């Protein structure tokens, strides 16, 4: 069974760089079926908005190829109810709402506002390396 994971948008995009420190292992995990991303309409909007940003200089075809590649592995939810969860950065609350409503294994983020909340919920909040360790522990795959 794949681990069901919510990826912060910055993690999804940072994992597409050739930087060896942040590689593209996330995308391999999805392709291999080791993890299944869980997303909401809020997160899809955030991904689309960021990819449209001029800093990435992407054609529409490239943007949509990235979105399609990501969403083909994802479970997509809408109308996520408010959980009442709080976070220092209110922009991160929709991630917590989705995680609590759907019931997932982990939130993967590089954002201290989210990472500081690890241990407060039934799911883990970890960096990509933390997810790597979870995958090893789960013995689901030979990583």
């Amino acid at each position, binding site marked *: 069974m794949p681990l069901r994971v919510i990826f912060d948008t910055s993690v999804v995009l940072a994992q597409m760089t050739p930087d060896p420190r942040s590689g593209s292992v996330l995308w391999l995990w999805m392709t291999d079926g080791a993890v299944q991303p869980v997303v909401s309409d809020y997160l899809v909007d955030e991904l689309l908005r960021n990819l449209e940003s001029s800093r990435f200089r*992407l054609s529409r075809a490239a943007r949509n190829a*990235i979105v399609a590649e990501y969403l083909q592995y994802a479970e997509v939810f*809408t109308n996520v109810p408010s959980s009442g969860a709080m976070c220092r950065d209110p922009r991160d609350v929709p991630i917590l709402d989705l995680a609590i409503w759907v019931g997932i294994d982990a939130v993967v983020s590089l954002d201290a506002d989210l990472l500081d909340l690890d241990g407060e919920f039934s799911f883990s909040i970890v960096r990509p390396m933390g997810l790597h360790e979870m995958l090893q522990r789960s013995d689901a795959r030979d990583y």
Partner: protein
Amino acid sequence: MLFEVNAFDLPEWAHEELKAQCAERAIGVDELVKYLVCTQVKSLSLQAGTQFTVPPEMESRMVSEGFMVVRRSAEGVVLTPCEPMSFQDALTEFQSNGLTGEDIVRAVDG
């Protein structure tokens, strides 16, 4: 961009097949023809893009972003990019911006 097509004659089998495909996918003839044109016409070769499923509430948003409907079912709406590009080509375009992972995290998380 709107593309106008005059009525044209189709073999009966193709007419029946179009109707059957539309019924099976629960989409209109215009949506099916758009899908067929976008996936088949370029270089006269099969270039269907990656498909994914979203809840019906997201359909209009995604169509406005350049995706098209392939199929509707109880599981949701299946979409694909109107202009197919391989993920590898998209990745190359993304990486050509020269940003590091840290740059991206700073830019996205602000």
